[in-house]
């Protein structure tokens, strides 16, 4: 069963890796992804990114995405931690860990998880810029395209 957490406080990647590995000798590799708030361009510098969510609903959505990953690849463990609240450039925002007996499913599942998280996790995101302007983040075509590549039928080489 996947570990799902939605929290405002920072996460400890090393600690989460240790938790995922604790007591296991069948894991051959862990795919890991740490998302970080990017500070945009010098012409339009980002001051902060604020994420709002609906407690309970978000965890359900993340659990559903993790369950989809577990159904597609032979995973031995999975951790998804997403932060909310006000984050500034450089802050870690999301952690994805996927453990498997072999590297290929671990890496593929990690890639899948972050692609789907970007487009399907129900967060409302608002960017605040240094010039005082603020706007809500809309869907990005490149995120949609990245997620769409996992729509069935997905590459056979990635199947469990």
């Amino acid at each position: 069963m996947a570990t799902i957490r939605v929290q405002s406080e920072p996460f400890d990647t090393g600690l989460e890796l240790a938790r995922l590995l604790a007591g296991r000798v069948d894991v051959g590799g862990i795919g890991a992804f740490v998302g970080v708030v990017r500070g945009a361009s010098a012409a339009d510098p980002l001051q902060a990114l604020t994420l709002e969510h609906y407690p309970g609903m978000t965890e359900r959505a993340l659990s559903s995405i993790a369950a989809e990953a577990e159904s597609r690849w032979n995973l031995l463990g999975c951790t998804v931690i997403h932060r909310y609240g006000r984050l500034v450039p450089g802050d870690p925002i999301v952690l994805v860990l996927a453990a498997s007996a072999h590297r290929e499913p671990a890496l593929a599942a990690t890639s899948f998880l972050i692609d789907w998280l970007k487009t399907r996790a129900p967060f409302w995101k608002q960017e605040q810029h240094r010039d005082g302007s603020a706007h809500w983040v809309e869907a990005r075509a490149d995120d949609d395209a990245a997620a769409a590549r996992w729509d069935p039928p997905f590459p056979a080489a990635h199947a469990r």
Partner: protein
Amino acid sequence: MSEASHPRGTALRQRAKPPRLATWAAVPAGAALLIWPALLNGYPILFSDTGGLLAMGFEPSMGWDKPFVYGPLLALLSAHLTLWLPTAAQAALLSYMLWITQALVRPPNPARHVLLCAILAAGTAAPWIASTLMPDVFTPIAILGIAALGLGKQSRAQTVGTAAITAVAIASHLSHLIVASACIAAAALLRRTVPWRPLTSLAAALTFLLVSNAIGHGRPGISPYGSVFALARLIADGPARDYLDHACPAAGYRLCAWRDRLTADSDQFLWDPDSPFWQDPAPLPVFAAEAATIVRETVLTYPARVLAGAVRNAVRQLGRSQLGDTLVADYLTEAVLPRLQRWLPADASSWTRSLQTKGELPMKAARLAPLHVALLAAGAAACALILASALRRPNPLADLTALVLIGLAANALATGALSTVHDRYEARVAWLITLPPLIALSRSPKNAEARAPNPS
């Protein structure tokens, strides 16, 4: 000869004023009886919404769909120790309201109060509602509070306390505003006067909602995002889908892009993470503004269909009051457990051992369903007789009965017609139909003689 010097008058006075200790013990004793399902379960009964309510109270944070009332109360009353404390508190409030309500008909008596609570605990959904950590428990409390304030008289301290509890109850769930308004209107008609005391509670609740939403959401209003619920209802019933078919794509709504994913299930729209509401990246204020526009245009385009749908759903809601949909463990692991682990870790381990977690609670409740149905049917028949008696001579019991029935109908309208039809919505109040007959049964002819029309 004064009553005090009359032997029979003295005896009656003694019955009407029981020992003070027994009076004070009656309400907690009744409360203890009303939380037996939580004791059976091994932990207060939770619902997936309880997770969001805990977050509102403990973080604290504003929820988009709920008033900032019940969640903070949970955190406050738990003393950051255990959720058993708010469970006991809400059972005590319900017991107190039952005590106050009996005074409308006859002087409250500790033994009779405990007997009344025991019967309600054994044969109705009341204890299940009191044992569940959801604002549902405040629906009957609001109805009884308005009945007490609008139909009877209490001491100054009782009036202040009852009015305060009623205000909190009204503010705790948006549907309670409609229920309370209907009950206050009923009290006004029955007493042929302006019921200032319950009106004060309603005004206090409205003021709190306006101020808390202005501060917390930056949007003054009773329900800043209520349009999303109305849209979900109209989509499910059909008129909003037909309107979008007609208006898209020219109207330029964001929802036009999701038209093929709008179904006849309002819960799917509101609570499925893959629904257009959650998948559209538009922030809530933007989505709610569009929802308000679509709702307005739909109502203007199809007024008769919208009205017919509301009546149909309200009638369906009136007939749905079975226990069960709050007793399952659906989504509790995702929605509630992480919050218990974070803020009440000792409770988290108790919860994992509860019958609800193991999926055994619905079966326990199902065994009682025939008894609940039988008592509801008997209560409905008895209420009809009580109302018929008022045709001969108006009486306080008939007034209470009328107000309760108005409350049940308003609850069905507020939830079924404006939200969605769920058993839990009517189950939270349907048991009140047994209350007037039970009060009548425990009123002996001598008691009836002894009571004052408006006991204080």
